[in-house]
């Protein structure tokens, strides 16, 4: 007997499931669905799934069936049913978009995955490299526009940079020059790629700070091995260093190792101590206005200033970006606030000059005092961070300590535009489960471009994270992106495009039009979540 074409039946079954699910998902909450209908639907899928040896599907339906009953007479509200059937919705999505081999062969990237930045205006090359590197389990951010890319480099601080020499507007050498000072202090492997592979070009690249040079056309196997080596060295380097190169104070790794000791000391001696998170105000403006070189200088000066003003028993660490952690042993909450207020005042008086222009910089601080045994280092940092956020929210250049009070979070609009109800449902659920500090996500979904563009929300002057399907029937995603970018509030948007794997033209268009990132469909849900989380964290 021939049963070669089992695929055909599997596809039909999932097709039917998808249709039924879509029909239910589209319903408004004023309508209801009888339990009997749900039971029969699940029941018949289960039988067929078993015959087609779709074990995963059978297990899901079996479990769901336990909570439905042909005779119950119960009526489901669509939103309840959506939650109830979520596993089935997700499974259907995964079946439709991945074959089993692909799921197994593809490593899932987590938040610890190395971040690689590629700057290349040759979009097909960029896509090829991104695919190749992401297959290895690494996360890749890409940008075709050199100016945007340089900013992205400073903001995201990748673990490795891949840079094409021939770029429009600003070539690879100029970018190397721009990030030169930053690079002297940070170990970030930089790999130049170029079609121009002569000795002169190679020497120039190395002299300017490149760590590797790869000629085009790229040999894929060699490229991957080289990347593995670079990332490995980066990892070893990061693990061996305890001093932040740029600011010459302890780094986060040191803090992570040292902090628990203060808590142990407290348990033993009962001697309270304070933790403060301090953060330079409007640091992005400094970077934008005076350039990243000046920004880096301000950071280093700031760290050294604090270091010079504290006791030898106090500890200052760079926590990340323009954020530092200060630990003040044997210091009460009042004393800590007093000390920091003094520091803020003194630092604000300091004058910086750049090309004859003078400017001053302020900072804000959040304080938490450890006064009981039950608080963990993580909680203490979160409390201090919450207070810092409050200090920022209520005017900056000040210190706040709001032990045991809750902060008001900032709201970020997050909108999803996709014509596929299954994808909308999955994305909404993924977004709802995201935990981003200091951000309340206001999530909305739209089934086409016009209904989003005509919404009041689209015109709000508020941070807006937009997840946009590239291909939609009513208005193409590219057109939606174009319209968003033409709006007077374009700067408030961060756009993540969902594109087809093979649609190079669309990716090229999206990136040129100013999309901040793209993800090819089908996407892995966990992975997309991690990516969104990373992008959102940068938006605060």
């Amino acid at each position, binding site marked *: *007997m*021939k*049963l070669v074409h089992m695929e055909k*039946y599997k596809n*039909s*079954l999932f097709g*039917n499931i998808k249709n039924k699910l879509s029909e239910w998902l589209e319903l408004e909450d004023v309508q209801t669905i009888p339990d009997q209908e749900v039971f*029969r639907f699940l*029941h*018949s*899928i*289960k*039988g*067929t*799934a*078993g*015959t*087609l*040896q779709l074990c995963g599907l*059978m297990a899901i339906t079996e479990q769901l069936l336990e909570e439905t009953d042909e005779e119950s007479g119960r009526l489901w509200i669509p939103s309840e049913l959506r939650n109830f059937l979520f596993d089935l919705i997700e499974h259907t999505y995964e079946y439709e978009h991945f074959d089993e081999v692909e799921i197994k062969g593809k490593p899932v990237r987590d938040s610890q995955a190395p971040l690689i930045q590629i700057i290349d205006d040759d979009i097909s090359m960029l896509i090829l490299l991104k695919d190749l590197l992401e297959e290895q389990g690494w996360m890749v951010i890409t940008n075709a526009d050199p100016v945007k890319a340089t900013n992205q480099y400073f903001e995201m601080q990748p673990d490795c940079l891949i840079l094409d020499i021939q770029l429009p507007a600003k070539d690879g050498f100029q970018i190397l020059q721009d990030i030169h000072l930053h690079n002297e202090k940070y170990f970030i492997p930089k790999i130049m790629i170029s079609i121009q592979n002569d000795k002169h070009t190679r020497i120039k690249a190395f002299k300017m700070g490149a760590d590797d040079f790869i000629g085009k056309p790229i040999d894929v196997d060699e490229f991957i091995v080289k990347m593995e080596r670079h990332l490995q060295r980066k990892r070893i380097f990061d693990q061996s260093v305890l001093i932040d190169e740029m600011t010459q104070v302890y780094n986060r790794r040191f803090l992570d190792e040292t902090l628990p000791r203060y808590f142990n000391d407290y348990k033993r001696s009962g001697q309270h101590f304070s933790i403060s998170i301090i953060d330079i105000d409007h640091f992005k403006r400094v970077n934008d206005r005076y350039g990243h070189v000046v920004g880096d200088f301000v950071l280093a000066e700031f760290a050294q200033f604090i270091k010079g003003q504290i006791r030898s028993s106090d500890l200052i660490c760079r926590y990340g970006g323009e954020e530092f952690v200060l630990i003040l042993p044997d210091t009460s909450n009042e004393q800590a606030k007093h000390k920091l207020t003094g520091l803020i005042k003194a630092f604000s008086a300091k004058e910086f000059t750049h090309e004859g222009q003078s400017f001053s910089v302020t900072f804000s601080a959040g304080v938490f005092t450890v006064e009981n045994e039950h608080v963990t280092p993580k909680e203490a940092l979160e409390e201090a961070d919450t207070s810092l956020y409050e200090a920022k929210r209520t005017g900056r250049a000040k210190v706040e300590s709001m032990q045991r009070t809750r902060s008001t979070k900032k709201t970020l609009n997050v909108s999803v535009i996709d014509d596929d109800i299954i994808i909308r449902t999955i994305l909404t659920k993924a977004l709802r489960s995201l935990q981003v500090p200091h951000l309340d996500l206001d999530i909305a979904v739209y089934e086409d471009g016009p209904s989003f563009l005509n919404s009041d929300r689209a015109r709000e002057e508020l941070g807006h994270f937009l997840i946009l399907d590239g291909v939609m029937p009513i208005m193409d995603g590219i057109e939606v992106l174009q319209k968003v970018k033409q709006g007077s509030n374009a700067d408030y948007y961060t756009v993540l495009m969902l594109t087809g794997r093979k649609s190079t033209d669309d990716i090229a268009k999206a990136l040129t039009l100013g999309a901040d990132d793209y993800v090819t469909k089908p996407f892995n849900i966990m992975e997309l979540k991690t990516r969104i989380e990373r992008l959102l964290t940068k938006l605060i």
Partner: protein
Amino acid sequence: MKRILLAEDEEVLRMLVVDTLEDEAYEVDEAADGLEAVQLLNSRTYDLVILDYMMPGYTGLEIIEKIQSSEIKAQGKILMLSAKSQQFEQERILEAGADYFMAKPFSPLKLIEKIEVILHEAESIHY
């Protein structure tokens, strides 16, 4: 050529079984629910009737009742498919008048084997 009726409301399963049976050179009619099945059963006689237990229109059991009460033409053998695989359910189905029972989910290969045995038995009784 042996003639079979398949009454099964799940479209994909019906597709699969019909294709499989046709590959084995049986002549197959299909019904998507109990009503269609009754119509077909009234118009011709089958060597084998495969009935799903749970269908809209009439259930498999209701159709068997109709055959037994001569409301529908007499038929050859009856094979009932059901996800209710407990012993007492099986017995109930067989007592109600089905000749054979097959638990869902089944492998298409097993179904073919079973059908071959059923039709072969039917022949040997005839002659």
